[in-house]
């Protein structure tokens, strides 16, 4: 039980370092056990250092940096245990256009393992999609769906 937890913890940590460095183009991140003697109960902390910057309290990171770090942790966990499908509702809202493109390209690495449903406003994310559904409210208060694009 404890042994399995530690093994998986290490795998998620490795994944996290890797995904973070890929999304940020460098830098360092880790998940850390608060107390190595009490792994089944202690805190699990996150530390993140964008490339070139000094390691600081995660609160000082910008809105977009926190968002990208959260996305990196999400994918680190999905890498260990891919969910059959994943529904993400505007999770990339805080990213600038350059980071949106990285996010879109990065998601494509997971499409063999998981199906993704992304609610989004951002063009970059739409460009990473295989299919787009538009939701409209032509008649006020009544939602309808139109399929908008199918790429091969």
């Amino acid at each position: 039980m404890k042994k399995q937890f530690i093994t998986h913890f290490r795998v998620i940590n490795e994944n996290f370092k890797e995904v973070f460095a890929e999304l940020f183009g460098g830098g360092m991140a880790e998940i850390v056990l608060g107390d190595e003697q009490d792994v089944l109960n202690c805190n699990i902390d996150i530390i993140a250092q964008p490339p070139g910057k000094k390691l600081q309290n995660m609160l000082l990171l910008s809105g977009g940096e926190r968002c990208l770090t959260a996305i990196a942790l999400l994918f680190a966990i999905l890498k260990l245990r891919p969910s059959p499908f994943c529904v993400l509702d505007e999770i990339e809202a805080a990213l600038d256009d350059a980071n949106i493109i990285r996010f879109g390209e990065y998601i494509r690495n997971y499409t063999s393992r998981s199906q993704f449903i992304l609610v989004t406003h951002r063009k970059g994310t739409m460009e990473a999609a295989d299919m787009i559904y538009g939701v409209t409210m032509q008649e006020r208060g009544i939602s309808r769906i139109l399929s908008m694009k199918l790429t091969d």
Partner: protein
Amino acid sequence: MYLKKLELQGFKSFPEKTVIEFHEGVTAIVGPNGSGKSNITDAIRWVLGEQSVKTLRGSKMEDVIFTGTQSRRAMGFAEVTMVIDNTDGRLPVEYSEISVSRRLYRSGDSEYLINKTVCRLKDVQTMFMDTGIGRDGYSIVSQGKVDEILSHKSEDRRKVFEEAS
């Protein structure tokens, strides 16, 4: 295993029977503010057995039933059906295609069905248990909730790690 189809009727802003077919890969759902995109996310959570009205952005479960507009009357029930391709046998069920439905009437009566057979909430939850879908906070991330992945109280994070483990 993948999500093949979602059917909504009477669910939040979808009074008319609406069918959304999904394919493997990445599907984007787009549209103006308030058009109903997050309601689709809510429908997926709901049909998987979501019990928390707060997570569904309501104050009571009845809030998921189409409440009418200034020019159309309210509906008496909400129903969502999810059809899943199970050719890879990932779900511990004999079928290669599985449909899961949930229905709620204004009276409060509600039903769950697997392949059109009435079952209990517990059966739906058990079926999806090993996949972690919906329950682990990582396969379905609601609008505005991504930052919580970082600030999750350590016990929540631990729970997710244990499920991922």
